[in-house]
Each structure stands twice: as structure tokens, then as C-alpha cells.
């Protein structure tokens, strides 16, 4: 496992898709900060959470990066080298998951650093506490972990860089649209409930499909984080993300272990 991780990380930092994805992730908070600065109407107060701007595109980033990175091993048949070297398929799959997720976390870290390097001098130090920041980032990692598990499963099933990229982007787009639609809808209902002074559950329903999707879909979770602050049902969010990771990773490993590699 250690040798697989060593090989994976060595390749990760040379990978063009990873480098481009990192630049895009870093660009998002920087651009967001600069746009706020250029807008004279934006109050000159600390931009808490600006470093999470990359979350708005994380579905594209991971949806593209994972198939491009892991798919290369199928296209160039280098997956064969790892299997023939006597590694178990389960360890190969897990190593790939750890490497790609670490890559995604690294991208977010770069985004935080780049965004902060511009936002703090222009707008001042963030007001949120270190604990709040850490919790925030934990949620981000959970969302990325779920997206990564889904993208890896797709790549494993399809076993081709380009086709996996296409399918992964379609799935990520579908998740993004569904998540945003549910998020917007529930937000409108919440505003309405507030205006009419009634309980939100009366309009959204407790544990209704809409309610579950609102808290579970990664795009909806991203929207909550981008809205600022730690969401109220954070435990539920973490559980659904971790459940997604376990489910999709287990499914991927099952497929990979039985797969005939060409």
C-alpha cells in the first residue's frame, strides 16, 4: 500500500490535469476577492468564507480530474504494471482513492492560501474563529470525498479516460443541477415560511424527499457552505457524505476486483 501511495503521489504532482485543476481552484477565490474589491458597493469588511469559492466549481474539477488521472492508467495500460507487481486490487483501488482525494484536498488548501493572500490585505483578517474555519474545511473535505468516490467508480466501470470523463461530467452536472434546484426551492420555502411565520417543516416536510436531498446532495451542501456558516444539520450532512463514500467505494472495489483488465 505504501509503495502504491508513493507511486501515486509522485505521479499526482506531475499530472497536468491536477496542475490545471489546482490553478482553477486557486483562481476562484482570488477572482471573487478582486471582483468584490472592484465593486464599490461591497462593504470593506473581512470576506469570511471567500476561500471556499472553489466549491462552486468543485463538481467540474473533481468530475474531470479523477477520470483524467485514474483513466490514464487504463488508457496507457499502466494499471497492468501495478496488478502484475503483485498488489491486491483492493489496495490499488484504495490507494487511487486516497491519492485523488488528497489531490482534491491539496487544491482546496491552495485555494485557501491564494484566496487569503489576496483577501486579507484588501479586506482585513477574517472574523471567524479557527474552530469555525476548521469545521468549515472538514465539510469541504466531506463533499470532495463524496464527489471523488463517485468519479472513481465511474472511471473504474468505464476504464477509459475520455469516456469516463464524459460520463463523469454528465453525472456531476446532473448532481449540480439537482442540488442547486433543491437548494433554491427549499430556500424560497424557508423565506416564505419566515414571512408567513410558520414552521419550515410545514412547507418542506420533515424527512421528505426534498428535505433529504437538501441536506444530502453535495451541490446543495456546497451552496450551504458558500452561503456562510456551519449548517444546522451538520451531523446529517457528514453522515450522508460518509455513507456515499463508503457505498461508492465499496461498489467500485467490487467492480474492480472482478474486472477483466485488457
Amino acid at each position, binding site marked *: 500500500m*505504501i*509503495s*502504491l501511495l*508513493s*507511486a501515486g503521489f*509522485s*505521479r499526482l504532482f*506531475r499530472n*497536468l490535469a491536477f496542475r490545471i485543476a489546482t490553478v482553477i481552484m486557486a483562481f476562484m477565490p482570488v477572482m471573487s476577492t478582486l471582483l468584490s474589491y472592484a465593486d464599490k458597493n461591497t462593504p470593506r469588511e473581512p470576506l469570511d468564507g471567500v476561500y471556499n469559492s472553489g466549491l462552486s466549481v468543485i463538481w467540474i474539477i473533481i468530475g474531470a480530474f479523477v477520470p483524467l488521472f485514474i483513466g*490514464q492508467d487504463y488508457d*496507457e*495500460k*499502466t*494499471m*497492468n*504494471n*501495478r*496488478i*502484475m*507487481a*503483485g*498488489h*491486491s486490487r483492493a489496495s490499488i483501488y484504495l490507494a487511487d482513492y486516497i491519492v485523488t482525494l488528497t489531490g482534491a484536498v491539496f487544491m482546496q488548501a491552495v485555494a485557501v492560501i491564494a484566496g487569503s493572500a489576496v483577501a486579507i490585505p484588501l479586506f482585513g483578517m477574517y472574523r471567524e474563529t479557527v474552530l469555525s474555519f476548521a469545521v468549515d474545511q472538514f465539510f469541504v473535505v466531506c463533499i470532495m470525498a463524496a464527489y471523488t468516490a463517485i468519479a472513481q467508480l465511474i472511471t473504474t466501470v468505464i476504464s477509459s479516460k475520455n469516456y469516463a470523463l464524459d460520463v463523469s461530467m454528465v453525472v456531476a452536472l446532473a448532481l449540480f443541477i439537482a442540488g442547486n434546484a433543491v437548494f433554491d426551492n427549499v430556500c424560497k420555502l424557508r423565506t416564505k415560511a419566515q414571512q408567513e411565520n410558520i414552521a419550515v417543516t410545514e412547507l418542506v416536510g420533515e424527512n421528505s424527499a426534498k428535505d433529504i436531498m437538501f441536506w444530502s446532495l453535495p451541490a446543495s451542501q456546497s451552496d450551504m457552505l458558500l452561503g456562510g456558516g456551519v449548517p444546522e444539520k451538520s451531523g446529517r450532512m457528514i453522515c450522508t457524505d460518509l455513507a456515499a463514500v463508503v457505498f461508492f467505494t465499496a461498489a467500485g472495489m467490487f467492480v474492480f476486483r*472482478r474486472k*477483466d*483488465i*485488457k
Partner: protein
Amino acid sequence: MEFVLRTKDLVKKYRGFTALSGLTMSIPKGSIYGFVGRNGAGKTTLIRLITGLQMPTSGEFEIYGEKNTDKKINDSRKRMGAVVETPAIYLDLSAKDNLRQQYRVLGMPDFKGIDELLELVGLADTGRKKAKHFSLGMRQRLGIAVALCGNPDFIVLDEPVNGLDPQGIIDIRELILKLNHERNITILISSHILEELSKLATHYGFIDGGKMIREMSAEELENACRKSVRMTVTDTGVLSRALDEMNIEYKILDSQTADVFAKLNFTQIALKLSEQGCEIVTMEEKDESLESFYISLVGGGEK
């Protein structure tokens, strides 16, 4: 005899198609085993099974005595390297970086031996040039170098000269011979180019329709393909005495037929035989090439 690989009744079925139907074979240690068969005969399927890329539907095999069902097979696989169909290399990395990557995968403690490997396969002077800019022959040699990482004592090469130019074919051939002679590496080469295999192989396995038709040593094959004259005479006892006197090599097949392995002076032999009352009934020149031998084994025509 010690065997590196043994398979028994290996079967591999895909949806509606049987690629291997009970293949049994043995590869002796230190040999260059030519695995011969037409396209679709099951050569690559067998290689995929033994390298762990695919699982057999039924049957079993063992590598260095470890059965495929045993977990220790992974340790045995560490002693082998393989190039299956196309070389498994990262196109966006240089030759050296590709080997470093494989060293990491194998968990080697350092990068010792990489320069020597590059030298061995003739890629020492490629520098930082990425593999995507390599010729087909260079990629093939890099693929072999990757397979050689970790000093395996058994390597599997699937159609290693496919698509190569004449110089590329010579390079690969010399490399294979070098690996076998100097490093005592057992080599399994699959190919449908018989002429090329005949310059390398010490043992042969002929496969057709997913079954092993025949296994034989190069010596046995050479004898089978030897140029000879098949003589049918009234008494092979008389013929053998005459041939002994003439110091000519022969093989008696039955009381009336013999194969003679030499250029014959037909008048001289005819006179000698007639002196002893033996008649020549027929004389037929036999010149079976490797290809015709193969065709006689598997039967001609497309399948």
C-alpha cells in the same frame, strides 16, 4: 525438469465466447518458450490470466509452484514481468521517470539499476524526452525495461515484434537472447510470426482454438521440419545396410519406408540396392518448413 509456469485445464469464457478451452502447458526454467498460434487462438488470454489481469473461469495454474488460488501467487508474480500487447508506460514521462515510477510501485528502496536497465534496452541517451515522442520500437524496449524492473526471473512478452521495422525486430531479438543467456531469465514469447520465433525459441507450444495442440523442444521441431527424402523400398533392411556403407543418416519408419537425411546420389543408391535385390518403389523429397509444420498441426484455412 523444473517448471516456471504450469497450467492445467485452463478455461476462460467471455460472454458467449470461449477463449481458452482446457489449456495445459508447462514452461521449463531457463527456456525461451515460443507460444505460437494464429490471431484469436487464445495466446493473449492465457497471458492475461497468468499475469493476474483476468481470472480463469475454471482450471488452474501455478507460477513457481504457487497455485493461482493461493494468496502467495502475488509473491510469485513479483518474480515476473510482462508486456501484454502494448507497452504499459506513461507517455507523459521520460524513460527514466517511467522506470522510477515502476520502482516505486514495486517498493524498491532506491533507484539503483535504472541506468543499467536503460543501457540494456538501448535507451540510455533519451534524456528528458517523453515516451510519447518515442518510436514504436523505443516504446517496446521501454516496456520491456519496465517489465525488467525488480530483476524478475520470468518475463512474458506478448507479440513483442508486432509493427516493428526490421531493425526494431533485430534489436528486440538480440535483447531477448541477451536476457536469456546473460541473466538466465525464462521468457515466454507469444507470436504468430513463426520465422521470428524460430530464431529465438528453445521450446514451443502450439495453440489453436484455445487448446494446446502440441508442446515440443526446438530440437524436436527441427527434426520434424528437417529436409529429407522419404524412400519406399521392398526391404528397408537392405536399404539400411547400403546407407550405413555410404555413411548416410536415416530413420527407418517401417519395413518399407525410411527417411534419409542427406543429398543422395540416386544412381549410386539405386545400383547398390538392385545388387542386393531390393527395389525402389518411390522417392519423395520432404522439406517441411516451420510454417507448413504448423499448418499440418492446426489444419489450414480460416477459422
